[in-house]
């Protein structure tokens, strides 16, 4: 057992690093320890001993997130979620190479799915690639940013970069990289590829201020999108989830206008539109955090999914599609609606 005394220090991002004993000699682990030289290091047997503890407070932890470094064991891939678009790929997976997100969006399902607001980084990235190999005999879409925002946390382990470089070796591997970050420069040195879609989620600035804590501003995201498009990347913009309230008309159609004032419509790969929806189980847990009006809206529940009632959902889509088609062909717009 090591003498784990550390000198007094100020809390900062990742004031504590929890490190599985089995990865303490891993090269990436050592690099991260160097980056966070002021953090206290606590050795653990298994990441679930920290991440899955039953008596954690997600809201309180959100203000002071810590980092867990671990080795992932199978499964390395999950079938794509029902709540998300699989873009007609026969093979559609998402991969949990990082758990938890640096951002703190009040409507995010992660706060209803995980006990902890901490982040887990699995340092054995190659095992994820190996798990994909048997599926790569046909076109396969992998979403690498479902349970996290990999670009937001890119400075840690260059996870996005590693995935992109791997995709470039495997012609059947297609990646969707969702983000709210403005961190295009993290991948700007890589040549754009048709196998990869960078997908930015946008919200009106007022919604960002109210609900998307710690995320970059709308303008910063738009700037990053412009940079990615200028570098010939395929960029999908998601105005999804739309958060409905009495200011919907004041906030969302102008967002579409702003998007296409900054971005040339013909340069956009796709536009995704969708209103808020979530598994009822996740929402039930988010309600317990008692921190957001979004959790307490009187949604409809159908087959375990909560969403705005059909007429509001349709109204949102109609307005958004009408606004978007002023700039972009309908064929380039994808929507998510409860069937």
């Amino acid at each position, binding site marked *: *057992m090591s003498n784990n005394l550390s000198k*007094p220090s100020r*809390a900062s991002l990742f004031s504590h690093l929890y490190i599985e004993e089995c990865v303490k000699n891993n090269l990436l682990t050592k690099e991260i320890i160097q980056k966070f030289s002021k953090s206290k290091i606590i050795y653990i047997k298994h990441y679930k001993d920290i991440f899955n503890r039953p008596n954690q407070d997600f809201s309180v932890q959100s203000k002071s997130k810590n980092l867990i470094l671990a080795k992932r064991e199978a499964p390395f891939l999950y079938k794509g979620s029902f709540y998300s678009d699989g873009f007609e790929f026969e093979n559609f997976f998402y991969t949990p190479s990082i758990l938890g997100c640096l951002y703190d969006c009040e409507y995010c399902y992660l706060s209803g799915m995980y006990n902890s607001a901490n982040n887990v980084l699995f340092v054995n990235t190659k095992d994820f690639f190996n798990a994909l190999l048997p599926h790569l005999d046909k076109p396969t879409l992998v979403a690498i940013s479902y349970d996290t925002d990999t670009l937001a946390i890119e400075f840690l382990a260059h996870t996005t970069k590693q995935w992109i470089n791997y995709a470039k070796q495997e012609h059947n591997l297609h990646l969707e990289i969702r983000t709210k970050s403005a961190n295009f420069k993290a991948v700007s040195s890589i040549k754009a590829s048709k196998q990869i879609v960078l997908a930015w989620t946008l919200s009106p600035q007022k919604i960002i201020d109210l609900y998307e804590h710690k995320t970059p501003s709308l303008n910063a995201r738009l700037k990053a999108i412009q940079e990615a498009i200028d570098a010939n990347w395929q960029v999908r913009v998601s105005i999804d989830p739309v958060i409905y309230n009495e200011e919907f008309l004041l906030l969302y159609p102008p967002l579409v206008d702003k998007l296409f004032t900054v971005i040339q419509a013909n340069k956009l790969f796709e536009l995704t539109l969708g209103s808020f929806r979530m598994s009822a189980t996740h929402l039930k847990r988010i309600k317990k955090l008692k921190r957001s009006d979004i959790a*307490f809206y009187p949604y409809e529940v159908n087959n375990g999914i909560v969403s705005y009632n059909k007429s509001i959902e349709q109204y949102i889509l109609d307005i958004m599609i009408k606004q978007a088609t002023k700039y972009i062909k309908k064929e380039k717009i994808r929507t998510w609606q409860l069937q």
Partner: protein
Amino acid sequence: MIYLIIAHYAEAEPIIQKYKLKRIHLFAYTVFTNDDIKLILCKMGIDNALMATSVLLGHFLPTKHDLLINIGLCGANKITVGQALLIHKITYKNHSYFPDILFEHSLIETDLITSDTAVESILNSPVDMEAYGIYKAASKFLKAHQMLFLKIVSDNFEPQTITKELAKQLITKNLEKLENIIALAKHTFKKDIIFSVKEKKLIQDISAYLTKAQTDTFLDACYYYKFHRNNSLHVSNIKIPITRLTKQQRSSYVKQLIQTLTS
């Protein structure tokens, strides 16, 4: 409320005096209390600590705004006697607990081993005899960030050198640190009160007319209103029914409540 779990009277005495705590009896335990603090003497050892913590918290039922602090002495290697330590990992045999320390502080943080007996051989980590039992019991009542373990180094694995007088001196010397830690933790985890007493009464009065499912829906709408409007429920125009409602009237009344609060 601050719940203090302390093994011996000698360690507790400076705190009892500083905060002018009054002695009460709680089952077989001696408890010292004022409006903000409840201090229990648990005696030495994991089992004693576990039982005393269960009794204290089980009796007073802490809320999410409360804090538990175990303050006591520990043996440690190469750390000056009198040094205060804040514990982030407590290990007993092969199992560990991890209190969340989510606020900035100026203390030394370290892991801790809880032992069944006084330890005379030198170990790398500080050693006490209660923390594991306290965490085990308290975790049934409190979140990981509500439990703090403040240990004062009393000896370098020479337990025979500890006297009651030394214990008192060491705790007295660190009283300010205890106070600072309480202030820091309370400030960091201060949660806004969502509903005022008056609003709670209004919700309760209206709920008396509703079924359980309707009450849940109504309460959700109240939360929505508070978070969304940041206004008092009293300006929302919701009214308590004057007479008993029929089933149909109740449905229509609830619909109207939800509409008022969420539109």
